[in-house]
């Protein structure tokens, strides 16, 4: 920790030099250096007291009169001294061509859809890394190489076309026993291209969108390939999905109403294949309001309705039953209908130098849940400190209960430049 802070201080002193600051400004370069502590490993491997260091740099160069670009790179070692190596990830690297009434973006990019808060049934285009050892939800996102075309039909209406032959799956924490399972990702071919279409309207008091996505599920499913002397042979793979979606946001005085809905169609229309998700409807609706000066409260109700649902427990064959159960936990398909509530409350004090937030999700059907309190203090424009915790509740065969090994407190010190 001390070594890293010393290194940070060195960079800081450079960053404070006038010449260097002028260079960063001119090149539209910014970045952040972070030292993080997590009580529990993010990848369910049972390790504790993880100390990590991250450097993230972003550049927004102008590539011409109507062309600009973005490059964002993260270099991190999430567990210094515990065998984890230093790795890098290009989060985004793209160029955008701006036309009079359209934008064309090419390259590795993050595309986030959905107007609900934190839980977005229509957000199926680009992945998240749920194992990343950083404290904020937005740290999980990373890009997929794609083409995105936005046509501005009017000041209020936008038609978006998204296309990529380069599917990129989410990275999820897996129990140690599952790690030897072979992962199959779709071949990078035109035939395996993903396509997203969205018509979006903003303004005049009511924002909404309608969307369609033809692509692959970002989350894997397990399937049984057969058996050999060593036991059952499994693989994880990403199946085709077709998603019809819609969302909206509207204010009623001091209340904001938001909603989002997706119907996800899969190959298993009869609901008989335990290795394939069943088609399902996933919707969420909620309100938010600010009380006093900065106390913001957001409450959402969500429901998942699975078509042709068959309980995994009813499968007689043990291997198939185990696979079906694991898939159902991951996909939120343990029950034909499952209901839940999310809750986010945040406040700020001392002219926004101190911020607190609590985000919680409760699955009412299986009584599992998750709560994450966060407290952030800005020591200055450059230095910020965050402390928080992730707490998971529920039985081991539930969505959040299965993540209990991840629970624990965390802390971060960051320097932005």
């Amino acid at each position: 920790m001390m070594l890293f802070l010393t290194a940070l201080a060195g960079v800081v002193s450079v960053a404070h030099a006038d010449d260097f600051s002028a260079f960063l400004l001119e090149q539209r370069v910014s970045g952040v250096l972070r030292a993080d502590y997590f009580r529990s490993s993010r990848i369910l491997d049972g390790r504790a007291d993880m100390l990590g260091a991250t450097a993230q740099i972003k550049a927004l160069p102008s590539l011409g009169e109507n062309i600009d670009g973005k490059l964002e790179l993260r270099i991190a070692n999430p567990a210094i001294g515990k065998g984890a190596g230093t790795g890098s990830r290009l989060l985004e690297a793209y160029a955008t061509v701006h036309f009079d009434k359209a934008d064309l973006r090419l390259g590795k990019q993050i595309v986030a859809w959905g107007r609900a808060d934190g839980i977005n049934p229509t957000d199926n285009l680009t992945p998240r890394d749920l194992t990343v050892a950083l404290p904020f939800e937005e740290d999980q996102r990373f890009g997929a190489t794609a083409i995105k075309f936005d046509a501005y039909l009017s000041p209020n209406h936008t038609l978006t076309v998204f296309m990529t032959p380069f599917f990129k799956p989410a990275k999820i924490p897996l129990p140690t026993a599952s790690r030897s399972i072979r992962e199959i990702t779709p071949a990078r071919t035109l035939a395996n291209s993903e396509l997203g279409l969205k018509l979006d309207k903003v303004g005049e008091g009511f924002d909404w969108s309608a969307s369609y996505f033809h692509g692959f599920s970002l989350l894997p499913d397990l399937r049984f390939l057969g058996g050999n002397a060593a036991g059952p042979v499994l693989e994880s793979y990403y199946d085709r999905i077709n998603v019809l979606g819609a969302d909206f946001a509207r204010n009623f005085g001091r209340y904001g109403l938001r909603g989002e809905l997706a119907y996800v169609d899969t190959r298993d229309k009869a609901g008989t294949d335990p290795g394939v998700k069943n088609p399902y409807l996933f919707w969420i609706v909620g309100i938010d309001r600010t009380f006093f000066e900065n106390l913001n409260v957001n409450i959402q109700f969500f429901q998942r309705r699975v078509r042709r649902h068959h309980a995994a427990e009813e499968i007689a064959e043990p291997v198939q039953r185990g696979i079906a159960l694991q898939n159902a936990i991951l996909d939120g398909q343990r029950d034909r209908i499952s209901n839940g509530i999310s809750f986010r409350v945040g406040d700020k004090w001392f002219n926004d130098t101190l911020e607190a937030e609590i985000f919680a999700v409760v699955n009412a059907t299986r009584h599992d849940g998750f709560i994450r309190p966060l407290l952030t203090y800005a020591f200055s424009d450059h230095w910020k400190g965050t402390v928080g915790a992730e707490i998971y509740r529920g039985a081991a065969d539930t969505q959040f209960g299965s993540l209990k090994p991840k629970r624990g407190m965390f802390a971060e010190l960051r320097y932005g430049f």
Partner: protein
Amino acid sequence: MRRPVLAAALLGVSTLVALGPQTAHSAELSAHDIMEKNFFVSKIKSMKTESTMVLINDKGQQRERKNSTLLKLQANGIDSKLLVKFSTPADIKGTGFLQVEHSDGDDDLWIYLPALKKSRRLVANNKKDSFVGTDFSYGDISLPKVDLYRHALLRSEAVDQHDSYVIESVPINDTVKSNSGYSKKITWVRKDSLLEAKVEYYDLSGRLLKTQLTTDHKLVEPNPPRWFPLYREMTNHQTGHKTIIRFDKIEPDVPAPDEQFTTRTIERE
């Protein structure tokens, strides 16, 4: 995280507020007339600005935000559209804010946070809410309707060597009082520009809460005259915190098509 970085907007909105006066100088002007002229003197047709906002706590520690804004007066001559983009510090760089005012209803507000990768519609603000962590409230920077207050001319006196009307404004009812967070305001309106040079804000218990000073008044549109203060300072006497807004560059009468005031613009990092 929900409603954080609108700070830039402050600058922009303060732009709205600060814009100068009509011709005045009539000795017969009532307090209400003066405040009405003060209201309209800040309604600039269109303007681009670059500004620096400095937040200073009671220990003298400073935080600084820089932003650029584009504003446009809507056809009704009262409401404005405002775009704000923050350029520093690093943690809010790229944050965009779009406000479309509706004097007959709730404003449309969107914020774009680069980390979230999408614009988010905000709940219409409460006039007494702090504007992005500054000492200005939304009601301080986007002036309320003149008819919502009873105005009384107290006296004339000089502020910063400029002869000014001193006007006391009291909310017409408890709702206005509660929404604004003030039991009264005392405004020093300069007789030459009809722009406010100083405003004192009193909390609901009648104690002095904040004082705003504006200087460097600039005539940005000659006919009708519209003024803009290049410097604003708001001091909260109860916390010792202060916010300074310096307009480093202003460019009035710029092209401002409606297509500019969209989420497309604020999402462009």
